[in-house]
């Protein structure tokens, strides 16, 4: 048995031991706040057993392990429904940015508590009027002696209502070209002048927030990267965590659709015999298997010490389309009673919840259009769209 296979077995044993207290069953019926609490405790448990932030240096609370161990662990972890997703942002982008760009002192202060699940972080990039267009942020950062004073608004900030700290990009030079007047900071979310207002999404879950900054004062030590180099820092943030395991919070599995198609009828026959249903199942299967193979191949490449290909970037686009098509068909198969709605249901087990979450999936974490642009430009070498915002000032 390879070391990695042994690692997998050990991880599985650990996970099985805790599945009852932290997995799917434990999460049933919890409010979002209760889930966050569970997630923080689960993170603490992982930290205590060397499974938290597996690749990070032990100096800052990580396990000092390998990229592959991390992937093996998250793949196994996803099978039991552990609430790791709720800390995916904290540990996926803000804290890694601290790890790379903060001072040693700051790292010692901020990283270990996050690894242990004691403090949560958010990422404050989007603003009203600056969604896909990151460089359009307007939140002001005004220099005042050794401090900066922040004023303005952020939006779509996941879990901000539960967070202790956040990373943020702000406009420090209103006169510089759009991409060149931004600076990157981290902020205390409990500081005076910060207020958080949850936003209900389509299913009325309050996963995201508006965050207002009313003359919030922060020291220059909270700056990450150079003054006016914030756009580059923000892009670096988004490039973090490229090979995360496929999201665990998916729609109902294909098995469930096959089962539904066996029990529902069309024209007096089991729906599984109907060509439309068969076509949908076959193509969903092909999409899911294709994505699984791409993921598996990336692991093989990493094992062999090579950089995986860029094809992993199709994952979100293809997976969300397949999930939405399955949810829509499942509702169609349910007949008129398919209109039933259970506001407490989870997207993982309920087709209506999966369906209504579909439009959000197409937008969150990069809209379909931005993903296609990225594939076209970064992988296929096609030219960038016309970008007047990059033109020198004064040109038409």
């Amino acid at each position, binding site marked *: 048995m390879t070391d990695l296979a042994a690692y997998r077995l050990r991880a599985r044993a650990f996970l099985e031991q805790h599945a009852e207290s932290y997995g799917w069953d434990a999460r049933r019926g919890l409010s979002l706040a209760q889930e966050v609490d569970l997630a923080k405790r689960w993170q603490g448990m992982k930290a205590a057993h060397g499974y938290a932030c597996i690749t990070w240096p032990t100096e800052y609370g990580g396990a000092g392990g390998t990229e592959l161990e991390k992937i093996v662990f998250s793949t196994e972890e996803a099978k039991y429904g552990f609430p790791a997703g709720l800390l995916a942002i904290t540990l996926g982008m803000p804290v890694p940015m601290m790890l790379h760009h903060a001072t040693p002192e700051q790292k010692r202060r901020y990283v270990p508590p996050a690894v242990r699940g004691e403090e949560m972080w958010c990422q404050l990039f989007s603003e009203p009027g600056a969604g896909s267009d990151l460089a359009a942020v307007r939140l002001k950062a005004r220099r005042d002696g050794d401090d900066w004073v922040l004023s303005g608004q952020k939006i779509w900030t996941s879990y901000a209502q539960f967070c202790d700290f956040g990373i943020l990009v702000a406009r420090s030079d209103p006169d510089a070209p759009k991409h060149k007047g931004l600076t990157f900071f981290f902020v205390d979310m409990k500081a005076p002048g910060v207020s958080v207002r949850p936003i209900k999404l389509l299913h*009325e879950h309050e996963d995201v927030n508006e965050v207002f900054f009313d003359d919030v004062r922060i020291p220059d030590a909270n700056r990450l990267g150079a003054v006016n180099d914030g756009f580059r820092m923000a892009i670096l943030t988004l490039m973090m965590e490229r090979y995360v395991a496929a999201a665990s919070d998916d729609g109902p599995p294909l098995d469930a659709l096959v089962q539904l198609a066996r029990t529902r009828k*069309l024209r007096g026959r089991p729906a599984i015999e109907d060509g439309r249903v068969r076509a949908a199942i076959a193509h969903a299967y092909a999409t899911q298997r294709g994505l699984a193979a791409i993921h598996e191949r990336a692991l093989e490449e990493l094992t062999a010490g090579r950089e995986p290909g860029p094809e992993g970037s199709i994952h979100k686009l293809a997976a969300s389309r397949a999930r939405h098509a399955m949810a829509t068909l499942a509702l169609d198969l349910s007949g008129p009673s398919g209109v039933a709605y259970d506001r407490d249901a989870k997207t993982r087990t309920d087709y209506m919840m999966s369906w209504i979450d579909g439009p959000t999936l197409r937008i969150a974490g990069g809209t379909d259009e931005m993903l296609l642009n990225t594939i076209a430009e970064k992988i296929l070498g096609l030219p960038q769209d016309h970008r007047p915002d990059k033109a020198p000032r004064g040109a038409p």
Partner: protein
Amino acid sequence: MALSYSSEQEQIRGEARRFLEAAFNAEKQRRLLHARGGFDTDFWQACVNMGWTGAGVPEAFGGLGLGPLDVCILAEECGRFAVAAPFLAANYAAAIAINDHGSDAQRAALLPAIASGDARFALALFEDEDGLPQEPATRFRAGLINGRKCAVVGAAAATHALALTDSGVALVDLAKHVERHIGDTIDNSRCSGDLAFSNASGELLQGGAQALRLLAVQALVTAFEQIGGAEAAMARAQRYANTREAFGQLIGKFQAIKHRIAEMYVRNELARGNALLAATGLAEGAPDFIARSGAARLAATDAFEFAAAQSMQTHGAIGVTWEHDLHLYLRRARAQALELGSPLFWEDVVVDMLSGSAM
């Protein structure tokens, strides 16, 4: 055929739109989403006051005696504002069925009640399967009805039902011997739920009132509601694409955005063409009315679901929030796609008609 609107009809449309524009209250509509079987009594009263409830009822029975196209204009405008109007289509289908197949007594009792707004009909056709039940489990015996009908639009606030039983379509007074099981649905303003009859008294409609034909009339009027919704969703996308900027330009300049909105237009116009053809077919007693209505339903369902989802995508994150109006359309589109039988069912209806009859 008359596939184009007369100037009188344009006037009806104009008045309806002015009223609805003034009355539109997204906040109220969002509140209805939280109320199981939510019914907008104020809007219903306004419909009564404007005579809309009597639009499709013959003048002899206190209605305005308007044709299907006129009724459909009202439906389209209601759809445009996504108002809670679950009885518009069912009442019209019921009025036609009662007028064509009812007894003199039934006509005299019910048509004026529809016109005055005192009667609200629900079509109780489906049981727990996708299509119309071939052998309904709901039984009609000696004037008494027993059985359960699923996902009936308007179930929570209807006064009467036309129920499909093993003996044919029966007219049922919902005042007693009926339990209404109203759960949450994706669009509570559809007022839907199950109706369970326990010895409810009913009368069969005579002369072979067909459940499929009833459903086709309801689907036709609903198709216009769907088209109204689709056009409203498209209009919001147009407006947003013409005002929102990203990357230094209007987002409408990006072909991904502008072509998507053009695709909405293509679907909306195909739906309108089919729906007009079906309305004309009903007015003229065309033998292929059911195929036309089926095509209208398929095209309108497709157009509305596409426009609602793609308009949301055009809006980005703001569009997927509870506070934005677009999900009123998204929910309505899915509810209307399912509640009268899914696209799968209607594809089958159309093909049955085409392969059975000369095209």
